[in-house]
């Protein structure tokens, strides 16, 4: 953690914020503040330099054009690579997850990714739209993933990363695995405000950023109710 406060950077909200992506920033900031941590939030637009000294970097979803442009600018900027080398936490969602890999497809063209995660993405036969659920890698100590996905990509994991979850509903990477993580980098197809339904995942990112083994528990009554309701909805859809 930086010396005085937890610094969270939201990367390129002008390009990569398709649907509620701001939620992840708001949720992390609030959960840190509720634990008494001072928080500094930076929204860095694509025409600005990326600071290399933040604790957590968030990359959201986006349409093809903005995704390709975002990847180009992040490669040219180099700030995120320096931050990762210093051990910063990165959380990528949907298009933001794909561009952490070696390559992805946008508007029918193969684009170079940031090569921060050992994975590559191409186009699937159909668009994956709907509830996404799965058991998260037990090493992360986080309960099941609950989310909504909306993407046309399929992602192939290399040996340098572990899947975030095993899919029980939806498609994720390929219908079997969903998302990926390595060190303090984590990506998911659970789009938009993914942390709203997964407060434990938010706390995992906060623990990675602060080095804390445990964080004081918060009242997650409403998130828990939302998770149960979604679990029941997914189960009921599976029966019909």
């Amino acid at each position, binding site marked *: 953690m930086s010396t005085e406060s937890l610094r969270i950077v939201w990367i390129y909200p002008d390009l990569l914020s*398709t649907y509620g992506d701001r939620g992840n920033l708001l949720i992390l900031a609030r959960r840190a503040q509720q634990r008494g941590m001072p928080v500094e939030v930076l929204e860095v637009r694509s025409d600005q330099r990326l600071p290399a000294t933040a604790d957590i970097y968030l990359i959201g979803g986006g349409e093809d054009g903005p995704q390709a*442009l975002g990847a180009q600018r992040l490669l040219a900027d180099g700030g995120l690579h320096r931050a990762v080398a210093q051990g910063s936490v990165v959380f990528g969602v949907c298009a933001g997850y794909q561009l952490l890999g070696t390559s992805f497809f946008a508007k029918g063209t193969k684009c170079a990714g940031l090569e921060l995660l050992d994975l590559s993405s191409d186009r699937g036969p159909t668009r994956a739209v709907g509830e996404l659920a799965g058991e998260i890698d037990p090493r992360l100590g986080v309960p099941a993933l609950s989310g909504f996905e909306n993407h046309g990509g399929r992602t192939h994991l290399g040996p340098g990363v572990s899947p975030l979850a095993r899919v029980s509903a939806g498609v994720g990477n390929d219908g079997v695995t969903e998302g990926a993580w390595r060190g303090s980098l984590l990506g998911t197809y659970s789009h938009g405000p993914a942390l*709203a339904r997964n407060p434990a995942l938010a706390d995992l990112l906060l623990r990675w950023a602060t080095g804390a083994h445990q964080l004081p528990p918060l009242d997650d009554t409403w998130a828990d109710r*939302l998770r149960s309701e979604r679990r029941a909805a997914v189960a009921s859809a599976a029966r019909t």
Partner: protein
Amino acid sequence: MPLRAKVASSVSRTAAALSRAAGRGDGSVIGGWIGLKIDPDLLAHLSAGRAIALISGTNGKTTTTRLSAAAVGVLGRVATNSFGANMPTGHTSALAKAGSTPYAVLEVDEHYLAQVLEATEPHVVALLNLSRDQLDRAKEVAMMAQLWRAALIRHTDVRVVANADDPMVVWAATPPADPARGVRPPHVTWFSAGQRWHDDSWVCPECGSTIQRSGEQWWCTGCPLRRPDAQWTVEDDGVLDPTGAWHKVTLQLPGKVNLGNAATALAVAAEFGVRPVDAVSRLHTVSSVAGRYAQVDRDGRNIRLLLAKNPASWLEAFDMADEAPTLLSINARDPDGLDTSWLFDVDFAPLRGRQVLITGDRAYDLAVRLDVNGVPFQHVRAFGEAVRAVPPGRLEVIANYTAFQDIRAELDRVN
């Protein structure tokens, strides 16, 4: 009209009447559906001989259609699909039901604009705005702008009335000229209705550069795309027309956004030769639109219904709502879009200090959002519970599409 079209039109009217009589709906879709089965060109046949305006965009279509129909009504009878049935089946039903009218003003779902342009050969098309709306099924914003643009290049004789404040609309309304093939861009009249929501137009649809904003102006930093000068603008509580004359607009509908819709309606009517001075008083006759803005008195509470379907329209709803107890209701059924992520695109902070109640199928999604937003709330299971939970006086209800219809049903399908 060919015989087949006459039969189709008559059957369509009968089916609509039967649907209403059977209590199965308001008949605004089923009649058109049956009519189109008998004569696939029925919409084109019903459009022939009418001067037509189409109104499309993400938000404000239904209200602007109602206001435009009122304004064009200065000239004569106007057919219109005022129940918000805005796909070709709805247009067919509306025209068949209206019989022969010299004018028609039709609200068009933005996905169907190309198809309806083709079928109805309108005199005017009004392009209101494009923003994120039900992305799990709708086309992405840039793709929608591209579809509009491609449709307009095939109909360069149509008069376009378009929003100068929305970069996506401006780009869609100004396809490039191609003199070699005799293609000239359509004539555009620009209006300025303001735009509170900017998050879908930071990237230029023409060249991918950043779009800069300063006050009401916007411009692309990489190509010539920029805000055109608007001929129709909102000023104070009225509308400035292209001659510079100001017309006071008194509406029964709340909010600055509806003043913008009124400016649009006056611009549409002007394309038919209606003088704003003649049309402006007619706008006051529009009180509520398919339940939107309707007020119902129940148990000492004055309940007002506001529809908000996507982030841009929630921002407008907060602007319209009084500082009063507020019920928010959210569903995520097919017509709403199945994804509730957009809740995090809305800043609910304006509701702090008001008594907030929440309900609907997806109340828990809203609960988590409000919690993060620092807005205290109370969850209620049913609409009646919300009414009992607030003191006598105004209760503002803001709901998305099917949640709105559910509450409207509780209030005897108020219009």
